[in-house]
């Protein structure tokens, strides 16, 4: 008998459409894994089992009635608990928004609904999407499905953990400095941060409006292509979203990488990297070369500028959003969060404007030099071996814990300032048994190229199919 929870998103959707499985059966299979794994993982903040069951029955009735079916008809999903759904809770992982019930629905959620997907719950996340580790003082830390003492990555911690533990076919995450790619890497799943402006942010909790991105985490590149194709595209409710056609991402998955130039980034991205992580990335590039990719090493320009300017933009925008609550409810933030928000209040507006106004010129200069030589930039997603929750716990750790904490997102942050799309795919395990991720980045709006490379890699490897120990009997 097929384990329905083990299906990929694409397989699950096809099973419902063809009548091979019911939506209710998918939901029950996921729920069984959730009941088994989640007490250890703490990947959810809330779930609505009665609502999910009703939605599944309605989806099955539509199949029986031969109604038109969307691409994701009847597939039960849960998302990072920062996507507004009218009339449902949305805690943003915070105490401050514990009782917040939005009146509107995020465009990404609406598009998933229109494609037939249902929502069964809200997933654990860093408080206000503000840490790369998965710590959460208010709802409890989320744990890594491969070893509970380690970070699951953040801020979309529950998204990564629930997809890895096979109780969620895919999940929306958000990425302001790596928050999709980091949990994807740490949990051994696939996650893509689209080009800035590719996906509407309407109804998604803001953190840094210049750097925020909406995107999927799933078990395969194909699943990410399917989900991204549903949510991408211009949205009048988000005037910053790009008015460009959305390619057929799934059609780009041919397995053929002949002539695609991939450069392993030597500058910055390998500084202080752990040898097992570098070795896994290099081996992944050899696999891609086997598919016809032309692999080289590349030095990247302007990384000092990207780091300095990007840090200012993120910090200032986040601090501005939270200033009122910092003034009125400082005790309702975790120590590490109020600690991170505070310095942003001291940065002069002139630094902020300088950083923003340089963003276009920096991108142009970077793209001109880099993409003349390569199509894709490769690096480890996290350059060190995965740290434990204890090693990165600023709230309870000794002075200096911040350094280890910030190092987690060192390789992902640059692409948020540059606005480039980037994907993380599992490419091995470190000596502690924790997943390692390979990050690929591309020109603006070249998500199809990223997904094609990731899919080609997954045709030749099985890292993405392995089951974490948390599912062991």
């Amino acid at each position, binding site marked *: 008998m097929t384990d329905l929870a083990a299906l990929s998103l694409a397989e699950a959707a096809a099973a419902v459409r063809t009548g091979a499985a019911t939506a209710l059966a998918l939901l029950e299979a996921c729920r069984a894994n959730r009941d088994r794994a989640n007490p250890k993982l703490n990947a959810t903040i809330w779930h609505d089992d009665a609502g999910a069951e009703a939605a599944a029955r309605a989806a099955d009735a539509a199949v029986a009635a031969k109604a038109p079916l969307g691409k994701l008809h009847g597939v039960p999903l849960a998302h990072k608990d920062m996507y507004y759904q009218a009339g449902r809770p949305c805690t943003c992982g915070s105490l401050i928004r514990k009782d917040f019930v939005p009146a509107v629905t995020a465009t990404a959620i609406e598009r998933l609904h229109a494609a037939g997907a249902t929502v069964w719950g809200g997933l654990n996340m860093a408080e206000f999407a503000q840490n790369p580790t998965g710590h959460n003082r208010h709802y409890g830390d989320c744990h890594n499905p491969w070893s509970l003492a380690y970070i699951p990555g953040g801020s979309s911690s529950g998204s990564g953990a629930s997809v890895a533990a096979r109780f969620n076919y895919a999940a929306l995450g958000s990425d302001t400095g790596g928050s999709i790619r980091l949990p994807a890497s740490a949990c051994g799943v696939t996650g893509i941060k689209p080009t800035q402006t590719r996906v509407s942010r309407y109804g998604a909790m803001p953190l840094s409006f210049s750097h925020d991105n909406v995107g999927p985490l799933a078990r395969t590149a194909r699943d990410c292509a399917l989900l991204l194709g549903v949510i991408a595209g211009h949205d009048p409710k988000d005037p910053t979203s790009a008015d460009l056609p959305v390619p057929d991402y799934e059609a780009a998955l041919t397995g053929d990488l002949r002539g695609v130039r991939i450069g392993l980034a030597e500058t910055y991205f390998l500084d202080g990297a752990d040898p097992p992580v570098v070795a896994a990335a290099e081996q992944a590039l050899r696999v891609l070369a086997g598919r016809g990719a032309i692999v080289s090493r590349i030095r990247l320009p302007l990384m000092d500028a990207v780091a300095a300017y990007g840090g200012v933009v993120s910090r200032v925008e986040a601090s501005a959003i939270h200033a009122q609550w910092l003034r009125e409810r400082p005790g309702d933030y975790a120590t590490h969060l109020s600690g991170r928000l505070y310095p942003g209040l001291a940065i002069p507006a002139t630094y902020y404007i300088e950083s923003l106004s*340089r963003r276009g010129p920096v991108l142009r200069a970077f793209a001109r030099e880099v993409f003349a030589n390569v199509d894709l930039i490769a690096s480890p997603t996290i350059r060190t071996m995965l740290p434990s929750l204890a090693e990165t716990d600023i709230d309870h750790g000794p002075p200096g814990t911040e350094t280890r904490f910030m190092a987690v997102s060192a390789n992902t942050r640059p692409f948020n300032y540059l606005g480039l799309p980037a994907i993380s795919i599992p490419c091995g395990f470190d000596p502690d048994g924790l997943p390692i991720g390979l990050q690929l980045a591309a*020109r603006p709006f070249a998500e199809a190229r990223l997904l094609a490379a990731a899919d080609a890699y997954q045709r030749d490897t099985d890292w993405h199919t392995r089951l974490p120990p948390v599912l062991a009997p």
Partner: protein
Amino acid sequence: MVDLGPDASRRDAVRKGDFLAATEAAVARWHGIPAPNAPARRMAAELAALIEAFDALRGALVFEDEPSCFEAALRETMEPSR
């Protein structure tokens, strides 16, 4: 006046102390927010490194196109065939 003596690290420490005190005073005056905890103070003290990073960039970056729209840059740097 504090006698710094010949010890550079001590001199740095005092300078950072001054910087932190000035930063805390500025945030309190402009925003009415005191430093919430020790990590906040440590991370605020690290802004000194940000100032140094900006100093290092000044004059080092020369762009043909000066301040301009980022969204336009995203479109201009897409793959040529698109």
